[in-house]
């Protein structure tokens, strides 16, 4: 009997089933909002309001033929999608939603877990690069090179921006940072610059417009995903969806004051705050066009990194003189 609870946690909530359902819902929300910004309808027909559309896409891809190129490294090629899903699911586990007893550190919430979460969230980039490299196709190689080049641009501003509220709260534990901002909600305002920088860097990490260079459809056919098809492509798409939820969960936990309220109210809070961040990401996606790879790196180092440092300076000054 004692073994049943962890199994339910792993498989149902907050485990794989909840992840699958919620991340496909998040993808539906993003697509519908993107379509409404462009004055068209978005998914309508599958399920009520098109809610089942991402699940239908997943099922369709699982049913298609799976082709592995002759020259590709078969073991790496096949293993990478599964590793990807494992990595982002682990990242979801560390969000401060389901540590049902905040005072006690546990496996999912311990001091320093913000660093572990940031590290785990930077692994998908490496997985995309390895996927491109093991495909040995020309377009995939260019996509892989672009993925790594973008990493040089957005990773440092993201780390700096996310660490400033941690500095303000004086702790490296996500649950405590969330609690700090829940007690003093006005202190969210000085962190606004960091919020904007973190949103832009999150958009770059998720490889969405304006930063969708690595899999730019009109230029390099599919980029990192050119040679993937069938079940492996379904896994990769699910991985990008879960990464979107995990990333917005991180930004919501650090900047918007976490998800208070215990088991059920915490879940409602989680859904509302992550959907808010996803709607901001969809807005950013609709407003801009794609920029070139050299422009990404120069934009990141010319604007994002100095703004993140400025944010850090503001937090240090505030902490020194006011708090």
């Amino acid at each position, binding site marked *: 009997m004692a073994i049943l609870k962890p199994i339910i946690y792993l498989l149902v909530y907050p485990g794989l089933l909840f992840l699958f359902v919620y991340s496909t819902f998040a993808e539906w929300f993003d697509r519908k909002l993107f379509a409404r910004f*462009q004055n068209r309808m978005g998914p309508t027909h599958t399920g009520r309001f098109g809610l089942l559309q991402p699940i239908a896409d997943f099922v369709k891809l699982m049913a298609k033929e799976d082709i592995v190129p002759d020259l590709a490294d078969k073991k790496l090629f096949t293993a990478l999608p599964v590793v990807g899903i494992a990595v982002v699911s682990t990242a979801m586990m560390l969000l401060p939603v389901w540590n049902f007893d905040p005072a006690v550190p546990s496996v999912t919430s311990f001091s320093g877990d913000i660093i572990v979460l940031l590290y785990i969230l930077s692994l998908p980039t490496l997985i995309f690069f390895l996927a491109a490299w093991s495909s040995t196709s*020309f377009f995939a190689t260019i996509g892989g090179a672009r993925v790594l080049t973008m990493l040089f641009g957005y990773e440092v501003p993201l780390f700096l921006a996310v660490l400033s509220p941690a500095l303000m709260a004086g702790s490296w534990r996500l649950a405590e940072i969330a609690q700090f901002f829940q007690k003093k909600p006005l202190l969210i305002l000085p962190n606004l610059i960091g919020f904007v920088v973190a949103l832009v860097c999150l958009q770059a990490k998720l490889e969405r417009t304006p930063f969708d260079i690595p899999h730019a459809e009109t230029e390099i056919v599919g980029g990192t995903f050119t040679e993937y098809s069938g079940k492996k492509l379904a896994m990769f798409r699910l991985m990008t969806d879960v990464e979107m939820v995990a990333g917005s969960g991180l930004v919501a936990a650090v900047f918007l004051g976490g998800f208070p309220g215990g088991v059920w109210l915490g879940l409602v809070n989680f859904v509302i705050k992550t959907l808010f961040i996803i709607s901001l990401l969809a807005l950013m996606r609709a407003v801009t*066009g*794609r920029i070139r790879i050299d422009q990404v790196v120069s934009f990141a180092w010319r604007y994002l990194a100095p703004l993140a440092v400025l944010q850090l300076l503001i937090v240090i000054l505030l902490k020194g003189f006011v708090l």
Partner: protein
Amino acid sequence: MKFTVPIGPQHPALKEPISLRMTLEGEVITDADVRLGYNHRGLEKLAEERTFLQNIYLTERICGICSHSHTTCFVQGVEKLMEVEPPRRGLYLRFLVAELERVHSHLLWLGVAGHEAGFDTFFMYTWRDREVVMDILETISGNRVHYAINTLGGVRRDIDEIQKNKILGSLDLLRKRSEYYLHIGANEPTFVNRLAGVGYLSKKDALALCAVGPAARASDIPQDVRKDDPYGIYAEVPFEVCTATTCDVLGRTVVRVKELMQCYNMIEFLLKNLPEGPVSVRTQRRAKPNEVVSRYEAPRGENIHYIKSNGTDKPERLKVRAPTLANYPATLLMLKKGYIADIPLIFAAIDPCICCAERTATLVNGRSGEERVVTFSELRRLARERWQKAPIKKDAVWPF
């Protein structure tokens, strides 16, 4: 490290098959080569077996976007051969549809440029406004694409007061939206940074390589067939030739948006000064033996049709030179020294209508690199010989 990367024949950036083979070093293109012929349909031979009246519909189907330009160019030439003069109301209606087609083509191009640059929202907005023009064309001519409104000696349909007022009403909406797009195009930083400085073609090069259309006008060459050699009623309609001085893709965008505004003025003038009278005259079926060259300013540049008649009701020879064919050498020059990320934009900036440009097949000898142009009957003979002699091959490898 040099790569040779094939863009095409199948590629998401291209709407039609064409093979561009680029040599890359890193992300910079050092050399580019083009192979045509994937869309060859044998239209010139088909035209020799149909009467002049049936050929109107054949030339219309050379292209979907610039369909009216091909059929008007052809009909102009045949009317010259038959020595008939269409009535003025017919001419006004013919060129009203021509200017509406130019509007729809430029709005389509704006959307495609946005899509190639990754700016999907712009794409959706311009195509939504293009629906207004398509609906107008549907009420005038009965179909959204392939209007088939030309006939030998004039046009086939007339417009009444209700349609005229509807067109004038939608012109206001289109004017407002086009100014809005000019405003966005000039102010959205991600879009402008993608377009500025890309695909540079100096004035000297554009003149030397005979670039036509907005690609040439963006390099500060005021060349427009409607002003240089006025056909139809363009001698009476007031308009300006739009040029830009930046010689890059941003210049071509600006030229096309300025041309949109000129088109709206022209459409208003044509509608307000529409003369009364019949819309067509009777023509004979046969044409005397003669030859004629007919030029027309399509949305993409200068369109040339050469028609030769021999006294029967079928043409002896029809030769079509579409504007995109003239822009290919200039494109190859623009592609060198560019980035790989700019390939779709540079190629889309000349507004490629590849199916217009497929006229001959060039055979390249794979081993020696020598090229020769062959006729279709020769190709058929070669193919038959090869199949009869070839043994069954296992593990065959493509030669390139």
